């Protein structure tokens, strides 16, 4: 039998979004085409943009220094337009592991990583990541040794954050494109680390 789909009533927020959007269109504030354009642009941004930045920092120490000094300018160097975004890049080292959260809402470097995953916006992640980061990371399958400092960054105001993960062993001689291929979205949020193979 052909799948006819299952009827689902709108949730409270879906209804609110549709009502507001239709009202804005009806009153001529925006057009449907403009809304579709923005949605398409948001969907088109994928974490590959961030991975490109990480891979460049891995192969070019001078670029890495500029990235840590001013993430916004360093992204623009690679042709990534990140209007109005103040990007702070935090570097993982053998002594420090960084992770990003926004406890107040769900601030996220969308222009580099795309639309945030649902768990990033969940109450569980947002409240527990500052309170018990080691337990949360373990649930993501990431065990951080007690000899490594965990720095949790609560993205509360005008900055946005991206983690610069450590380049894993076994990637010696790889070119930037191949390196970028192992940089996952989660590793740039700090709930995973890049792995080879």
């Amino acid at each position, binding site marked *: 039998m052909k799948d006819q789909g299952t009827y689902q009533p709108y949730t409270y927020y879906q209804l609110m979004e549709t009502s507001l959007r239709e009202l804005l269109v009806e009153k001529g504030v925006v057009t449907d085409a403009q809304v579709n354009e923005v949605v398409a642009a948001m969907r088109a941004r994928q974490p590959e943009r961030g991975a490109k930045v990480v891979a460049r920092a891995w192969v070019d120490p001078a670029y890495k220094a500029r990235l840590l000094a001013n993430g916004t300018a360093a992204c623009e160097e690679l042709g990534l337009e990140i209007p109005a975004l103040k990007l702070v890049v935090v570097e993982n080292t053998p002594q420090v592991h960084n992770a990003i959260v926004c406890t107040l809402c769900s601030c996220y470097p969308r222009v580099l990583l795309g639309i945030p995953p649902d768990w990033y916006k969940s109450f569980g992640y947002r409240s527990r990541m500052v309170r018990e980061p080691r337990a949360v990371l373990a649930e993501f399958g990431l065990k951080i040794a007690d000899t490594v400092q965990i720095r949790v960054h609560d993205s*509360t105001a005008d900055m946005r954050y991206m983690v610069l993960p450590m380049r894993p062993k076994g990637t010696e001689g790889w070119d930037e494109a191949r390196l970028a291929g192992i940089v996952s979205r989660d590793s740039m949020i700090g709930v995973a680390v890049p792995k080879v193979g």
Partner: protein
Amino acid sequence: MKPQFATNFPAVDARFDKGDRVRVRKTAPLGHIRTPFYIRGHVGEIERFCGSFPNPEELAQMRDGLPAQPLYRVRFKQKEVWPDYKGPDSDVVEIEIYQHWLEKA
């Protein structure tokens, strides 16, 4: 201290330097506040001066938010924030906080 991101807004003078010990004001005004509840009243250390930005509490009231407020990243020891924190003493949480929420500790 030079900010990480220079802005052109007319701004309040920056009062704190990297390494300064600061306490977050323990108060609960109404409105749109960017200082999380869990950090109010706690003492941390200025990690960096981000730059000066229009005050979001004013922006939320449809005002211009000027003069801009200096914004800092403040580093707090997890063990100080959560006395029952499970993890090594070295673990920290870093939060952006506007100057008008900070006082010298």
